[in-house]
């Protein structure tokens, strides 16, 4: 590799050099050239000043009134809430049907039908209704827990969540799933690094 560079090469690579993309012996050759060449030295300094000035330019937070207007415009209406509830029933027919079945089973046990009174149910009927109700409730509980886990996973894996919050959430979910307290362990350095 040649140890000489001309002014055109230096000027063409000024940005890469300032970015740190020119390294090692190549960077040394550039530095040597700039030491001896007044024009390139001035150009390098000028490019650095522009870069520093651009990077020090301020960023701005939107005013509160803008965020308040956005909040107002995105607040769900009553109709949207109803649609969302109906959407839940349409999109999750199994949990919805099981919930309905559980309610009907409970009503069958609790509410007297016509001339039959609670005391007139046979033991077998009561046992069967109780078992079906328990089964339905267990299914609802399981479906709810799975849905909750799914949401928690999405939130934890999503961007913008600080590592500390992520760690605390994991600890709480671990303990919650097992019903016991998890032994305290310090967060690893990778856990505390800022997410990209």
């Amino acid at each position, binding site marked *: 590799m040649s140890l000489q560079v001309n002014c055109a090469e230096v000027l063409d690579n000024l*940005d890469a050099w300032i970015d740190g993309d020119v390294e090692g012996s190549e960077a040394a050759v550039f530095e040597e050239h700039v030491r001896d060449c007044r024009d390139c030295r001035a*150009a390098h300094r*000028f*490019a650095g*000043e*522009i*870069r520093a*000035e*651009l*990077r*020090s*330019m*301020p*960023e*701005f*937070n*939107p*005013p509160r*009134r*803008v*965020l308040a*207007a*956005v909040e107002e*415009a*995105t607040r*769900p209406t009553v109709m*949207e809430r109803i649609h969302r509830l109906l959407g839940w029933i349409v999109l999750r027919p199994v949990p919805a049907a099981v919930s309905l079945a559980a309610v009907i089973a409970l009503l069958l046990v609790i509410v007297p039908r016509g001339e039959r009174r609670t005391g007139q149910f046979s033991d077998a009927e009561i046992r069967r209704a109780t078992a079906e109700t328990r089964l339905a409730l267990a299914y609802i509980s399981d479906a709810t827990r799975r849905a909750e886990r799914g949401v928690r996973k999405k*939130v934890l894996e*999503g*961007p*913008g969540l600080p590592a500390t919050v992520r760690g605390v959430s994991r600890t709480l979910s671990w303990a919650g799933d097992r019903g016991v307290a998890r032994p305290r362990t310090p967060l690893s350095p990778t856990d505390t690094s800022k997410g990209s």
Partner: protein
Amino acid sequence: MRMRRAVFDAAVATHSRRVFTLAVYLLGDREEAEDVTQDVLIRLWRKGHDVAPHRIGSWLVRVTRNACIDAIRRRGSGIRGVTDSREDALPKLASGVPGPEILARSSELGNRILAALERLSEPHRSVVILREVQGLSYQEIGEAMEMPMSNVRVTLHRGRQRLREELEEVRNHVAAG
């Protein structure tokens, strides 16, 4: 179908500053930038449900840039022909006057840079602002501008060179005066 509320709130908290800053620099007008920011965030709520959460940032930059170009076209609609593309509209119709808030915080060189930025053509101007002022990575700029990384590098290189040339002219003009 709308975005999930938690995802939307997190996106607003994370990206509203970036949206507003980009609008301020592209429009040079704080009030217009506020309107654009409000519209863009509401559009995110209405149409962002099919945007992957990790792409919301680049989606917002793209939509903000397009909204700014549209705003500039509206500003000069009595002058320009309706056939102007967005890419053509931005450099030709920019105000050329940076907002007072930016001017107040900037140095002499900073003010000259802002004026020179206004004269840059697209997409050089947007890429220089996104990279140098807002600190986006090449990948983020590529996603936002819908161009490959190699194009981002070339565009940024040309934008920086053009900016230096503009400033050299200013410097020479001042020296001659």
